């Protein structure tokens, strides 16, 4: 699956794989918050810093970025017809998502070394 010819198929696969992970993670996360909400800052920080949880969180951020990128890209391509404007909005979306990803990565790393 490489090159422009398969770009649509690749996006389609990425969208569904990331969706499955995001869905499972959200159910797990909501379950945690409902049945065992973090009682203190220290309990919350050490939960995030747990190796499995921080790895799952980083995978979650990555899936979220890919999923949001494909989704917003499709919406922009469908509704924004002027080519220049579409390009600018796509670039802004990409930059915003990368910035959010970097921020999330930093937050998880800081929680681990604290």
């Amino acid at each position: 699956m490489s090159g422009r010819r398969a770009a649509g198929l690749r996006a389609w696969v990425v969208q569904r794989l990331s969706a499955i992970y995001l869905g499972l993670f959200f159910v797990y996360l909501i379950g945690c918050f409902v049945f065992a909400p973090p009682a203190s800052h220290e309990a919350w920080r050490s939960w995030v810093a747990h190796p499995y949880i921080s790895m799952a969180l980083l995978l979650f951020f990555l899936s979220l970025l890919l999923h949001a990128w494909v989704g917003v890209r499709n919406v922009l391509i469908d509704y924004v017809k002027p080519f220049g404007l579409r390009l600018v909005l796509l670039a802004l979306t990409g930059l915003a998502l990368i910035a959010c990803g970097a921020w999330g990565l930093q937050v998880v790393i800081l929680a681990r070394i604290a």
Partner: protein
Amino acid sequence: MTKTKKRPVHLDLRRIRLPINAITSVGHRISGVLMFFLIPFCIYLLDLSLSSPRGFSRAIAILDSLPVKGILFIAIWGLVHHILAGLRCIAIDLDRGVEKPTFIRTAYAVLVAAPPVAFVVWVAL
């Protein structure tokens, strides 16, 4: 020169009927775009809550404030609708529920089930 065929152009809103599956599908898009805009706020809250014990209580205070509680309900509704509509999409990809009656019924089920499920989650959180 070929004659342009006369097309039925009517943007009379009373005559345009969106089928139920279109409403579910548009909801999938709207909820997705809404959650996209909420990503930075979620990371901000995560950052704040992990920064210090004071930040932790501040994050909880923000989540407990009235306007944020309202936004939170809409966000959870969007998330639940998005997940249910997404599951329906994947089922359709796998050729399940493609026949018209089932197709319509599942679209209706997603649309109707999302608000009460979201409400239960919102109250439980």
